[in-house]
């Protein structure tokens, strides 16, 4: 066995996990995530802050960043998420077919790779490209959530399959794109397929053997949602009996959507896991009267039992496809002179929410894009958005084209996660600045068939705001205590990459035209940029190896052309460094998306 830091960690964790009744996976992973030399989970840490304590790369020297190494994944299509780093080892994932690579950071050789066999019939039922947002690590294991819903545990040292569990059925439109997360002895995952009438859920599987521990649906009877009518609260009040059933016509909740394809965060002190649910099915609101609970909802659940502690529905009776799946970042901030344990959530509906994460109390709800017009404001007593009739696709009705609604269906922000710097107290948010015309139409549900029921057309928000601008995105800094934009950088294209904030007072994000950018955390001033091989929809991550801080990001957007030159240069370099059994694994022979890694020169 190689005597690497990762190896030793893994061995220690494996021993710990073997002890009966021990919950060391949590402690081990918690310790790994708190060590800024690692990037141990999607958000860096359980709070999803995407903040690193590392400061070797800082505001003054970031302009000297240069490429340290690159790795081509061999897969086309959009590359979301980012690599994990545990000690001396990096784990890289890809879009469908969801390959996994273990890379030795000492020399960038590949330790192992895992290529699952998946039915290509999964591809057509994935609504929005064949993306995958990344792996989870714990206990010497890598957890891979395949597109075809298979959840796989791999031995982190060898890549050998330890167990597989089937989480859904692609024939019914159920697929997965989310990154799983591990808490204690369980691994949590969700489901995609709101556009196919899939009923969303959060599922917890045992880390040890992959057996389902519990499943909590987003809609339906209380017991199936793991909701206690008396104890589960919304806006500090018990939700009451049959809170979901009463909010749907008939048994529409069975195909009600509320899928769970976003990011999950966790508070170890409160032992609560936080996530959001997606749109109700169909996109035609006229045929599904009611609040459609609990679609479009932030859930806070007990990580052990799955019981819901509190819920908050951002968009009751969605009429615009404003999925509520975006990440909930956990932070402790001053509000009105007192330190509050909050959760900050930038919803697709264009409101930035600050809630007390202990109780679910709504503290702040303000627009984080001035273009947002579908609601005037959120009523702070009821928590309900005050919908503007002119932009209500329901009130306008079926086969009526509701015009100039802001934001568009993709939201003021989609899944690309924001970052939070406790140093500046600011949240850094990649956004869309796009509006739409929306026309609902009648559609019948057929399992495994698209269940959309609306046609859309989209345009720059500047056309509605009438301010002469045509940028489709902004990168903003947000004050979650007051609900105000601190600064806003216009971007020609929407910003679909996850942000990173660091103790070096630098914030990183990627753009669709392929630039990785570094800006000043206080002022937003651009400090550095680099053109990667393709557009960036991945998350920027950072780690150290051998005392050097690295910044890494995947590039690669949809379609053949979107991979840039990575394919074009392939032929000539085949054979370079390709030896023996690892020929197929040589980084020189991988086509497709590219991980570009940066460091300061020696």
């Amino acid at each position: 066995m190689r005597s690497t830091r990762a190896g030793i960690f893994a061995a220690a964790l494996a021993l710990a996990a073997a002890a009966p009744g021990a919950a060391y996976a949590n402690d081990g992973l918690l310790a790994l995530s708190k060590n800024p030399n690692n990037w141990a989970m999607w958000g860096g840490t359980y709070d999803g802050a995407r903040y690193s304590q590392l400061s070797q790369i800082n505001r003054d020297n970031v302009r000297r960043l240069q490429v340290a190494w690159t790795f081509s994944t061999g897969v086309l299509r959009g590359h979301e998420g980012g690599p994990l780093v545990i000690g001396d080892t990096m784990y890289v994932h890809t879009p469908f077919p969801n390959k996994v690579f273990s890379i030795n950071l000492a020399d960038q050789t590949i330790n192992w790779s895992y290529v699952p066999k998946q039915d290509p019939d999964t591809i057509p039922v994935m609504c929005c490209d064949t993306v995958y947002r990344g792996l989870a690590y714990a206990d010497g294991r890598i957890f891979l959530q395949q597109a075809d819903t298979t959840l796989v545990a791999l031995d982190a040292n060898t890549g050998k399959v330890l167990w597989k569990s089937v989480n859904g059925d692609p024939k019914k439109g159920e697929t997965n794109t989310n990154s799983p997360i591990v808490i204690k002895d369980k691994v949590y995952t969700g489901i995609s397929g709101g556009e196919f009438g899939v009923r969303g859920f959060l599922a917890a599987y045992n880390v040890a053997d992959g057996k389902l521990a519990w499943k909590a649906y987003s809609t339906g009877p209380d017991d199936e949602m793991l909701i206690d009518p008396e104890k589960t609260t919304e806006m500090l009040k018990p939700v009451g009996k049959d809170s979901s059933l009463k909010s749907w016509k008939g048994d529409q909740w069975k195909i009600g959507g509320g899928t769970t394809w976003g990011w999950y965060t966790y508070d170890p002190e409160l032992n609560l896991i936080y996530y959001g649910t997606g749109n109700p099915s169909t996109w035609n609101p006229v045929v599904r009267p009611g609040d459609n609970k609990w679609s479009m909802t932030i859930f806070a659940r007990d990580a052990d039992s799955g019981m819901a502690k509190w819920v908050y529905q951002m968009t009751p009776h969605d009429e615009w496809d404003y999925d509520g799946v975006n990440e909930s970042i956990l932070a402790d901030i001053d509000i009105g002179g007192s330190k509050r344990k909050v959760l900050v959530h930038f919803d697709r509906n264009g409101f930035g929410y600050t809630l007390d994460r202990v109780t679910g109390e709504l503290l702040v709800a303000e627009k984080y894009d001035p273009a947002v017009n579908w609601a005037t404001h959120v009523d702070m007593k009821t928590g309900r958005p005050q919908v503007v009739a002119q932009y209500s696709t329901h009130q306008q009705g079926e086969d009526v084209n509701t015009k100039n609604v802001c934001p568009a269906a993709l939201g003021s922000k989609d899944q690309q996660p924001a970052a939070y710097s406790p140093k500046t107290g600011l949240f850094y948010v990649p956004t869309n600045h796009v509006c739409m015309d929306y026309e609902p139409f009648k559609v019948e549900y057929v399992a495994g068939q698209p269940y959309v029921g609306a046609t859309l057309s989209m345009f720059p928000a500047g056309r509605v705001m009438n301010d002469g601008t045509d940028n489709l995105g902004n990168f903003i800094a947000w004050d979650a205590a007051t609900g105000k934009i601190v600064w806003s950088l216009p971007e020609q294209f929407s910003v679909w990459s996850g942000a990173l904030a660091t103790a070096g007072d630098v914030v990183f994000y990627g753009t669709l035209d392929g630039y990785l950018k570094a800006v000043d955390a206080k002022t937003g001033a651009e400090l550095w940029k680099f053109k990667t091989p393709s557009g960036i929809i991945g998350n920027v991550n950072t780690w150290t190896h051998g005392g050097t801080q690295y910044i890494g990001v995947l590039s690669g957007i949809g379609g053949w052309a979107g991979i840039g030159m990575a394919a074009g240069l392939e032929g000539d370099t085949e054979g370079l460094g390709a030896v023996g059994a690892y020929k197929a694994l040589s980084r020189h022979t991988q086509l497709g998306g590219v991980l570009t890694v940066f460091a300061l020169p020696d």
Partner: protein
Amino acid sequence: MLERVAAVLLAGYLPLAAANDFPTQARVEFVLSCMQAMGGQSYDTLYPCVCELDRIASVLSYAEYTQAETLSFLYSTPGERGGIFRDAVSDARKRVEELEALRESARAACVVKRLKAPGSQ
């Protein structure tokens, strides 16, 4: 002479003073992938590719080129995500088509004849 300049300008071939700002990385990337597409590295592929790039860079600034190129990538992205660009950039199709037309005219103006093996066509 002036007439000739005007004619060339209309044809879109003459260098405009404002452009020619492609950075080294972009030039190398363009030429290498162009050579690859033409069958590999040789002087027969180097010269037409350099010529093609010079012509494009003389018409478009690097920022304009990058935007048009990005649009052409996003155009092929499936579903709602590609839709945002097919829809939201009012002249997206026009810009993608203009870039393609510029490339084609540059290619046509940059042909380097290749020696043929006896008997080949």
